[in-house]
């Protein structure tokens, strides 16, 4: 009876350790994949960072809005016409 108990205890300990190990490995592999944000490989084998592409797209949108917020027509000849001067 004592032998059976000690065998069960050992098996339980081995099972717990292996479960813990597998959990750790799973966590490490998930962390590596999820947070890096790496995309496909480039032509020379180096990885292209997807977050860089997103940053560039967002910046281009911002820049378009800023540049289009001012109009060169603010300095058109009409602004200094005879009628503007009341002549």
């Amino acid at each position, binding site marked *: 009876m004592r032998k059976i108990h000690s065998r069960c205890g050992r098996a339980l300990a081995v099972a717990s350790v292996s479960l813990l190990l597998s959990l750790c490995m799973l966590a490490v592999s998930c962390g590596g994949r999820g947070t890096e944000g790496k995309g496909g490989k480039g032509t020379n084998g180096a990885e292209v960072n997807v977050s860089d592409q997103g940053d560039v797209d967002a910046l281009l949108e911002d820049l378009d809005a800023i*540049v289009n917020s001012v109009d060169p027509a603010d*300095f058109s*000849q009409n602004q*200094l016409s005879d009628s503007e001067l009341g002549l």
Partner: protein
Amino acid sequence: MRRIALTLAPIILCLCLCGQVALAQGQQEQQGEGRAGKWLEQRGEMLQQRIELLIARFENNKERHVEAYNRAKEKVKQLLESLQAKGYDVSKLAQDLQTWDAMIVKFAQDYAAFISKLKELSELAVGDSEGRFRAGLQEARQLLRQVQQDALDIRLYYQQTIRSDIQGLRDQVPESA
């Protein structure tokens, strides 16, 4: 003697009448000139006020333009630094940024010359000849045309050069991360 007096009397009378008429005409002309002078002065002051108003409007527009250009420049600079740190080749974009900066400086300089001419014009509006004012106005319009061209060049340089070079960087593969 009597005959002489009779002959001279109408002549003297005529001379007196002519003198009075001439005097009255002179007074009328003086009054007219005075009124015209006053009208010209009022017109000049009104013109001066309009020019001051236009200067304020142009200054406001210039501030908005320069602020937008600087904001855009700063964003491109930040992207350039961030991508450079990640190993991207940003030499072309760095060169674009320098050219763009020079264009913005030129815009500011041409604008300053234009405003200076407008201020000069404002002085000419009161008490100066119409011809000189018109000549000054023509010069101011030419300077304004240059300012508008500078603003167009800045916008086109962004759309045709900087934008496409940034897009090129997006597809570039960095040498080392």
